[in-house]
């Protein structure tokens, strides 16, 4: 009886696995159709002269320009400047968010002292601080880095705080009965427990970092991708402006993919959890 009842249940499941994978592949192709079509339309429209070149040059022309600027080192130089700004801002904002988020998440006194002002500051869209920041730190490098650091700080702080707060108290207790002292509990329970939230915060933070960079680099920059774009605008080099957009988009995409890979490697244990 039992074997009879089980077999028909298992058989279609095993058989269904292959078509399901094929269906998934087909969907992925389907989802590529409209973006490729749009790109082709854009290219064709530009070549036929329907889209004026000074408004929006053909994608092939943008790529050519990219190739040329990469070849003579201009693109690399400006990219390095932008990356440096983003990196320093990320570092400053990230360290501050980690430190304050941990203090607020772990200590009751820290929670009472740190969290309320941060919650209040969150209501301000940080990009709206630009005029005030210009008065405070001027229009130089400090402005760009401060803006990035501010953008990074908030999402990371909130996720570190929530990640620590959401840890199952019962696991901490079990670790205590296993003889772990507070530092060991921090290392074996709190840190790994908060890691998924930390990755989420980091992803949001990096997104905010690029956004802040874009805005910051439009204020009196003499180098960086933003400067490249502003300068090109003055000389009506639309292809360079669009190239800058491509670069920004690519930076966002690459950093996200990279972070996802690191996350998957670090949080191996979660894969089993999802399958279960």
């Amino acid at each position, binding site marked *: 009886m039992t074997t009879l009842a089980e077999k028909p249940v298992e058989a279609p499941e095993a058989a269904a696995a292959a078509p399901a994978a094929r269906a998934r592949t087909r969907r992925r192709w389907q989802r590529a159709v409209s973006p490729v079509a749009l790109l082709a339309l854009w290219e064709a429209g530009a070549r036929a002269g329907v889209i004026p070149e000074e408004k929006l040059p053909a994608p092939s022309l943008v790529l050519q320009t990219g190739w040329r600027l990469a070849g003579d080192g201009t693109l690399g130089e400006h990219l390095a400047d932008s990356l440096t700004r983003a990196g320093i801002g990320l570092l400053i904002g990230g360290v501050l968010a980690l430190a304050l988020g941990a203090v607020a998440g772990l200590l009751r006194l820290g929670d009472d002292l740190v969290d309320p002002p941060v919650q209040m500051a969150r209501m301000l869209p940080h990009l709206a601080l630009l005029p005030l920041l210009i008065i405070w730190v001027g229009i130089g490098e400090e402005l760009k880095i401060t803006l990035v650091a501010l953008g990074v700080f908030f999402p990371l702080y909130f996720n570190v705080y929530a990640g620590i707060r959401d840890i199952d108290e*019962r696991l901490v207790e079990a670790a205590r*009965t*296993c*003889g772990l002292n507070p530092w060991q509990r921090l290392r074996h*329970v709190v840190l790994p427990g908060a890691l998924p939230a930390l990755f989420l915060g980091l992803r949001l933070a990096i997104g905010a970092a690029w956004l802040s960079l874009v805005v910051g680099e439009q204020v009196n920059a003499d180098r960086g991708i933003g400067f490249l774009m502003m300068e090109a605008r003055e000389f009506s080099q639309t292809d360079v402006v669009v190239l800058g957009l491509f670069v920004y988009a690519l930076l966002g995409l690459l950093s996200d993919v990279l972070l996802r890979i690191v996350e998957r490697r670090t949080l191996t244990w979660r894969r*089993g*959890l999802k399958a279960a």
Partner: protein
Amino acid sequence: MASRTEGGLTTPVRATGVRRAFGPAVVLDGADLHIAPGEVVALLGGSGSGKSTLLRALAGLDAEAGGDIRVTRSQAVVFQEHRLLPWKRVDGNVALGLSGPGVRERVAAALTEVGLGDRGRAWPAELSGGQSQRVAFARALVREPELLLLDEPFGALDALTRLKMQELFGRLHERHRFAALLVTHDVDEALLLADRVLVLDGGRIAQELDVRLDRPRAPDDPGFAPLRRQLLDRLGVPLARRA
């Protein structure tokens, strides 16, 4: 307030006048509890009678508990939920807090004892409820405790798995001879495993019953029925069926 754990005791648990209140609600009102080396004591009581509260006080997990609590430092706890760290593999969970040479061998031996010698590299999420609870037992036993505190350790398992786990507990106790406080709401389980059964009621130990039955025991042993009747009466459970 209460004196905490101490080592080198002849009596693993010597607790007198344990008190605990949550706000105005007094949950423990002077409970006394002694456990001799190697003795298995079952703690019965209705839901919300304070069994877990008493166990947590003994485990040193409740700083607010009052009274004179002397418990050996060589202790381990098994909870109703396995409480394995999902981000550590099974062997890492068992090894939690251990140091010194031979940890790897000790962990492997403990896992083999609970019948999971080949699952050391598995993630907790890959185990069934019964297997997870066996890992929790291995994690407790690998410390070779004088005292094992168990809070309804089989409560979340299905009936068949529970029987197997009770049998495993008997075997492990036979070999390691730890003293144990087994919190349970299952009268048969208490009679099956314990040398002595306590009933917690009104914040105190309201009844104490020695179980002098030969081991291994089975619920259909002739000596079971009167003891079961007595305990169920004390717990206020009416006997629907007259045996």
